[in-house]
């Protein structure tokens, strides 16, 4: 993947996957893959969120003193 994954892209892909699964356009074989991808994306997004939260805490925590 040339383009670096961002939260935005991940979220979009996730929603695409959901609608693809809902749309019945895929088979079980693909479902497995899609679910795995969704898991990856979810993990990525959660990581990103946790990281951002940490960043916010860390960065803004400096000013408490």
């Amino acid at each position: 993947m040339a383009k670096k994954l961002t939260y935005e892209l991940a979220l979009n892909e996730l929603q695409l996957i959901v609608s693809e699964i809902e749309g019945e356009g895929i088979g079980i074989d693909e479902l497995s893959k899609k679910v795995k991808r969704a898991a990856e994306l979810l993990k990525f997004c959660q990581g990103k969120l946790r990281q951002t939260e940490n960043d916010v805490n860390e960065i803004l925590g400096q000013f408490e003193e």
Partner: protein
Amino acid sequence: MPNQQNYSLSDLMDELQMVIRSSFDHSYWVIAELANVSGSARGHMYMELVEKSNHQIIAKARANLWSSRKHQIMKAFEEVTKETVKTGMKVLLQLSVDFHPVYGLSFQVLDIDPSFSLGELERQKQETIKRLQEEDLLDFNKQYVLPVVLQKLAVISSESAAGYQDFMNQLEQNTNSYQFDVQLFPAVMQGDKAPESIVLALEKLENKGIEFDALIVIRGGGSNLDLACFDDYALNVRLAQSFFPIFTGIGHERDQSVTDMIAHTRLKTPTAVAEHIVQHNYEFEKGVKDLFSYVLESSQDSIAENQYQLEKASSRMAKSSLDLLHSEKSEIRELSFLTNQSAMELIHQNKSQIQQIKNDVMYLSKSFIKEQEQFIGHQKRNVALVAKDFINRENVDLYPSKHLVKYSLLSIEKENNKLDYIKNLIRVSDPELLLKRGFSITRYNGKAVTNAEVLEEGNEIETQLAKGSIKSKIIK
């Protein structure tokens, strides 16, 4: 002209002489101005008489005063008027008229009335005084304040006059040994030429550029006649406006001249002027001496007083200045405090603002993240949900297996039925079953006989029964 009677000139002149002598046979008192006065070597005096109206000569005649009468007339005149008869004078003359064929018309002066001339001189003098008064010049010179000491003196006098010598002697021999700086400006001091001469001297001294303490006009020792020049208007106008205060010592016996009147200080004689000046200086010296000790005392007083005043002024000034400075200092301090306070307040406000913004960023970021986390959770559940849905759907799709079973069983059933039918058919067709029911099979030569016609009598046939067989011969 042939009809005319001709005269010889002498005839005519003789006739004129006769007429005039008979018509003007006595003397006349005539008022006239002396336009010119001249004398002859023989002691006669020739006068030119004129009468003017508005500066125009309206009558003019010659008159002769013979030396025989002249001395007596002149003596009487000078005694009364202290003046000599001279050009420009208005006189009252006693004249007799004569005519001479050769010399023409002439008047002989028989007498001159001195009292008329005296009156006339007085009139002129009064007129001069009046004019000077009108021009505010009469007391003009008196306005000068004399220097306390008179030292630099300008003298207008005749150099050779005895009065000048008297003046100088008096000055130089003063007992207080005052020093004087006297400069003489010589001038003619009597007669017609005097006014012009004095004015010239005046101009000369004024042009010197020296600040004289006084201008001394003195005369004396000469004739007492011809002093009417000091009543001259032009001279007095000029003298009155002199740069310096004028002292006069003209020595008029009659009464004071106009020059005395316009002078700052008038004295009878040059000696008196000198005495006055010495006295003036002495008075100053005396006054100075008297004042001196008083001055010293009061100077010391005044110095002390002034010192005190200065100190008072200085301390008052210092006090109020320091008061002012003090109040300004507190104002500056206050301003400094206010600046500090307001700046700190502003900084504090900004600090709270920054803190607020920080909190906002923190809070908003966190709630944003939380929201996203919820969204992600939601997405996760979504994925699970749709995936499970999907699997369930697929499970349902696998149910064609039921059809499979159903149709398979159906097919088996059908086959079974088919087989059952066949089975039944076969069973009813089974020969053994017929044998058991009592049927039998007849064989001839081992072959089952189905048609009796093929058999002949005697043929041995075998009959198969359900159990066992029997052999028999055809009988019929």
